[in-house]
């Protein structure tokens, strides 16, 4: 398992809490896919996470030209996207 950064852990806590997941935030490998075979999140979860992110970090998640799958590919991908765009 690769090293989890403090911000990745913060986001992992948000995901586990928002989605009522049956895992501890520490146990999410930042490189594991969030969808499909990984954490098994689905498109409804994407919406819930997007709403929480926009509330907490002050910007709207949008996939622009890339697709959602890239931003939500893993905890690490999502974290780096938020770090680039957050306003608070």
């Amino acid at each position, binding site marked *: 398992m690769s090293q989890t950064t403090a911000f990745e852990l913060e986001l992992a806590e948000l995901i586990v809490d928002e*989605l*009522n*997941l*049956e*895992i501890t935030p520490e146990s999410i490998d930042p490189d594991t896919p969030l969808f*499909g075979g990984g954490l*098994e999140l*689905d*498109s*409804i979860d*994407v*919406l*819930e996470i*997007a*709403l929480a992110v*926009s509330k907490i970090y002050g910007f*709207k*998640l*949008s*996939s*622009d*030209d890339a697709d*959602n799958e890239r931003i939500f590919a893993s905890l690490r991908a999502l974290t780096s996207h938020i770090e680039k765009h957050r306003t608070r």
Partner: protein
Amino acid sequence: MRNLPLIGMHATDDVVAWRRGEPISAAELIEAAAALATTLPSRRYVLNLCRDRYRFIVGLGAAMIARRVTLLPPGHGDAAMRDIRRDFGDLCCLADHEDIPAGIETVRAPAGTRAPALREIPAFPGEQPAAIVFTSGSTGPPTPHVKSWGSLVHGALALGRHLGWTPTSRPSIAGTVPAQHMFGLETTVMLPLQWRGAADAGRPLLPYDIKAAVDATPAPRWLMTTPLHLHACVSDGIDLRGSLRGVISSTMPLDAGLARSAEETCGCPVEEIYGCSETGMIAMRRSASGPTWTLCEDVRMETQDGATRVAGGHIEQPFALADLVEMAGPDSFRLLGRASDLIKVAGKRASLEALNARLRKVPGVSDGVFYVPSLPENRTGRPAAFAVAPGTTAAAILAALREDLDPVFLPRPLYLVDALPRTANGKITLDELEALARSMSARRYSDELSAR
């Protein structure tokens, strides 16, 4: 009987789809479908997993041309795929992504060489089986429902007439729902194909992506979506006014309050479809204006001995509804609630009793119960569960459930408890479960605090 065309009312140079602002013509669609039809493996069924809506349409057209039946998977869970492979063994898979089930011969989309140019739009007998949709497998394996080409075409024509469309309407249609779901198939595939419309090839989920997808197509524009996406658009403060001519919502109930906010956000009427995988759409209403539903064209509803059946119009087999219904007029009604213990998540149904039975069968679980936490916290309608499981762990229980259940029904959260709050006669009330859940959550947080 006259054959029914793959694309109705269209000229070959009409636009049938948009992908990120790029038009795709009817001629291109026909050519791609004809080419793909020649390269499909000689299998009876085509499991169409394409996420790109245009590629899905090409796959459906190719299957029709090659007289194959398109399978629309009920979910992506391993359990669903296992059951489909068992019951529909003579199948191949068409996919435009890597997430494909193992052990099934797969055709990559786009695929196929150029076909000789077709002079005319292909047409098919109304009775030709076009697609098989599945209802959820929580009460056993997924149940297949065959849709003939005629019923899909007639349903789309009736829906367009209900929306007041004419052959000159030329609607652009974007959707947040997959083409593989019955509502998505009806509104984002059959509706544009039959009404000289154009489908957005994408599947935008987030509010800004929805706006971008809609705005990249010419007016008049329609959005086919769900209450969850509408809620996201409303809470995100996005402004869709001026972008949309109409919105249709389905898959879960749209309450009047959200419907009114959504109409403000979208600047247009928000209609709701009541229907199910077995029948397709049954009735429509403008949810902001009241609770009464109007039956779709030629659909009849009969209530006898407390059970309500729908028949007629595009509905091929009379079907008994799981909802309690009160007629409000010859073609209008109100819903009074569920006649059974069915729950619905992401457009999929499951029986609470069947979920409970499955949970109690997990090795190490001595008692257990699923329930649906109430609003406002539980917007998605996902179930949670309690288990008395001295002999196992939450992770092991979830792993066991995952083998048989669609992932949307996996409990969130699963609480492990010493005993269920049963009354003297063994019953469990929702109030007791919610109180227990609150105390468990409070305990979880105080544990976390003391651990810090």
